[in-house]
């Protein structure tokens, strides 16, 4: 007979990226102290200033407490049980040419749909898009970056941050921590002390990056945390579109992912940053899964700069992340488009901060939260107009969709306005996929799984429109897979 929404909820979705790569790794014993910080820094032959920067961050972190204000619940993380560095042994000497990369690693990325050979290079979770450069980060190190020569012709720098420390040390020193300082928050401080790798991008003045850039993050080793650090600098009048994808094996224990992403857009520059986050979400009983505690922030540093965050979040046991924009340049623009889907026992507390400092700055927030199973999905956002932000504007739209009646949706919008000559608009809706809607679809021949996916895709349309084309298709498919639990 026919299934009701409630009956459809509960089965386990299939997590296709949940396999483990058997590869010999060099992994530090669990625990964190100054020696570990020095070890990581030495491993990468870092200059003295950076070692000290890390040690400062470690001291700051030690004096901070983990934040507890988010609407998520989990036992305290045992930071001494985590290993802070793991790298495939074959990569011990750092990234080499692609021919020298361990074939087992190449197979891992192929299995994930990300072959690293340039002639068939695909990006992130994107399939069939040849014109994307990829940086692949495996546990703590970057193992390959494609299309670097072609990018170099345009003057674009795209490499692991561990390499940029040497090749573009002045830029790294100038901008590292300039948007997310060491003491910004507990997890940012931790990341600053132990960050292992990540991507570095520099787009010179007036250059439009000739292809999409993409980083693919993969956690493999057991009991390790991943602490990547991404720094993107778009010099005056330049333009770049950057994609990020993430997966991890299915493991019973929780794993910590505490990344920091810093974006700097100078005058008239534009950065478009898209994320498809599909970390392992844990099983249907909430066992295992990634704790995704990430700090992402962009600075519109000059006039008419623009930063746009688009995220599709389907993975992780717990998500705690607020990609934000500081609108310092006059007439600068910040955007945040988000789809967050939670199923089973997943918890998400995500949103954005738009900090208006410059005149005539404007920001747009479109957030779509979908909850099903027994999950909890929270939007948390801050819009702040400082006294200097005359004629600033914000538009916020916050929609929640519930599937079944055992999940929750929550909205915490904060507005701080110290500028009378500004405009804030806020719209919010909550709706539910009803048995009547499902039956109406079924009566027209559409099976319930397809019906839920159609309704959810319709709900997310405004955000998917913002994703690069191939990414939008993949995001739609990813939602379908993540909804499998919800649709039997």
């Amino acid at each position, binding site marked *: *007979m*026919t*299934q*009701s929404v409630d009956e459809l909820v509960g089965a386990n979705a299939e997590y296709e990226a949940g396999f483990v790569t058997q590869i010999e790794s060099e992994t530090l014993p669990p625990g964190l102290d100054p020696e570990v910080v020095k070890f990581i820094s030495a491993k990468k032959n870092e200059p003295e200033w950076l070692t000290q920067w890390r040690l400062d961050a470690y001291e700051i972190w030690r004096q901070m407490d983990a934040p507890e204000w988010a609407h998520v619940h989990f036992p305290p993380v045992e930071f001494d049980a985590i290993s802070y560095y793991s790298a495939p042994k074959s990569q011990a000497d750092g990234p080499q040419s692609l021919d020298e990369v361990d074939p087992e690693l190449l197979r891992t990325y192929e299995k994930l749909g990300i072959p690293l050979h340039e002639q068939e290079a695909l990006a992130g979770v994107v399939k069939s898009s040849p014109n994307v450069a990829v940086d692949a980060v495996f546990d703590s190190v970057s193992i390959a970056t494609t299309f670097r020569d072609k990018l170099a012709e345009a003057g674009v720098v795209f490499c692991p941050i561990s390499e940029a420390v040497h090749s573009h040390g002045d830029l790294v020193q100038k901008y590292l921590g300039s948007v997310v300082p060491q003491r910004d928050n507990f997890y940012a401080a931790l990341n600053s002390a132990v960050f292992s790798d990540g991507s570095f991008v520099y787009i010179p003045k007036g250059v439009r990056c000739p292809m999409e850039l993409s980083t693919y993050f993969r956690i493999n080793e057991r009991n390790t945390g991943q602490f990547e650090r991404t720094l993107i600098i778009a010099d005056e009048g330049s333009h770049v579109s950057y994609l990020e994808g993430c997966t991890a094996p299915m493991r019973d224990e929780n794993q910590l992912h505490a990344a920091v992403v810093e974006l700097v857009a100078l005058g008239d520059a534009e950065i478009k940053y898209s994320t498809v986050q599909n970390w392992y979400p844990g099983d249907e009983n909430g066992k295992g899964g990634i704790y995704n505690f990430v700090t992402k922030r962009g600075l519109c540093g000059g006039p008419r700069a623009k930063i746009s965050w688009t995220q599709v979040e389907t993975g992780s046991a717990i998500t705690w992340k607020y990609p934000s924009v500081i609108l310092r340049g006059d007439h600068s623009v910040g955007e945040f488009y988000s789809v967050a889907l939670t199923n089973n026992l997943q918890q998400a507390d995500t949103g954005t901060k738009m900090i208006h400092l410059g005149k005539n700055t404007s920001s747009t927030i479109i957030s779509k939260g979908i909850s099903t199973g027994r999950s909890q999905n929270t939007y948390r956002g801050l819009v702040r107009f400082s006294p200097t932000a005359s004629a600033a504007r914000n538009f916020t739209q916050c929609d929640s969709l519930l599937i079944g009646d055992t999940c929750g949706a929550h909205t915490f919008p904060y507005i701080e306005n110290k500028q009378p000559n500004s405009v804030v608009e806020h719209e919010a809706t909550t*709706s539910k996929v*009803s*048995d*009547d*809607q499902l*039956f*109406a*679809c*079924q*009566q*027209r*021949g*559409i*099976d*319930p799984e*397809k019906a839920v996916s*159609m*309704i959810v*895709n*319709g*709900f997310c*349309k405004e955000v998917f429109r913002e994703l690069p084309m191939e990414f939008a298709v993949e995001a739609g498919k990813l939602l379908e897979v993540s909804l499998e639990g919800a649709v039997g």
Partner: protein
Amino acid sequence: MSVLEVNNLHARVEDQPILNGLSLTVNPGEVHAIMGPNGSGKSTFANVLAGRPGYEVTDGTMLFRDAPVADMEAHERATAGLFLAFQYPVEIPGVSNMEFLKAAMDSHAHANGQEQPNAAAFIKRVRELASSLDLNPEFLKRGVNEGFSGGEKKRNEILQMLLLEPTLALLDETDSGLDIDALQVVAQGVNQFRSANNAVVLVTHYQRLLDYIEPDFVHVLANGKIVQSGDKSLALELEAKGYAWLT
């Protein structure tokens, strides 16, 4: 082969018995009207046939083109050619009418081993139907029934019926809430649909609709079973005398 053969049907909704031994045979080319007082089980009958969740068959048989429908999922009944025009069509925000109609057409084609309709021909057909039902073609871009008036929602149901060309169309109080102009448009749609190969079951409370759609048979339902059957004149008699003399 009959289109529908229902024998001694018993059904309940949330433990409340509603149908108590209903029997009905519908042959190709026929239009049946099912009338009766509020709470007699008219809408329940239509929804049990379509397989709405929560409507449980406790006894009896329902054969649709000789197949026992109780064993089929609601969407399988639909693609087999059983159509229910809803009394209260729901809104599905975010899913455009065009997208919804295409998904419905594709599901039917897929289930019946046919090729998906060509997109251009499909759009042309939908536009023609919309115009014949006095629906502004702009409605196709809007969410399913989103912001539609009661009359527009009912006309949208008729449009779906004409598009999907079912073997059996169940119209659940399609006339309720319609003004006289909309009623005529809907009736015209149903008359256009009638053919020797399909059948229509009209569930209605009022005789009014039958002025425009002439039924071959009229049945009166009371306490979950048919208590009287006749031709069109029965409907006129009910209009004059009410239901009390039958129950």
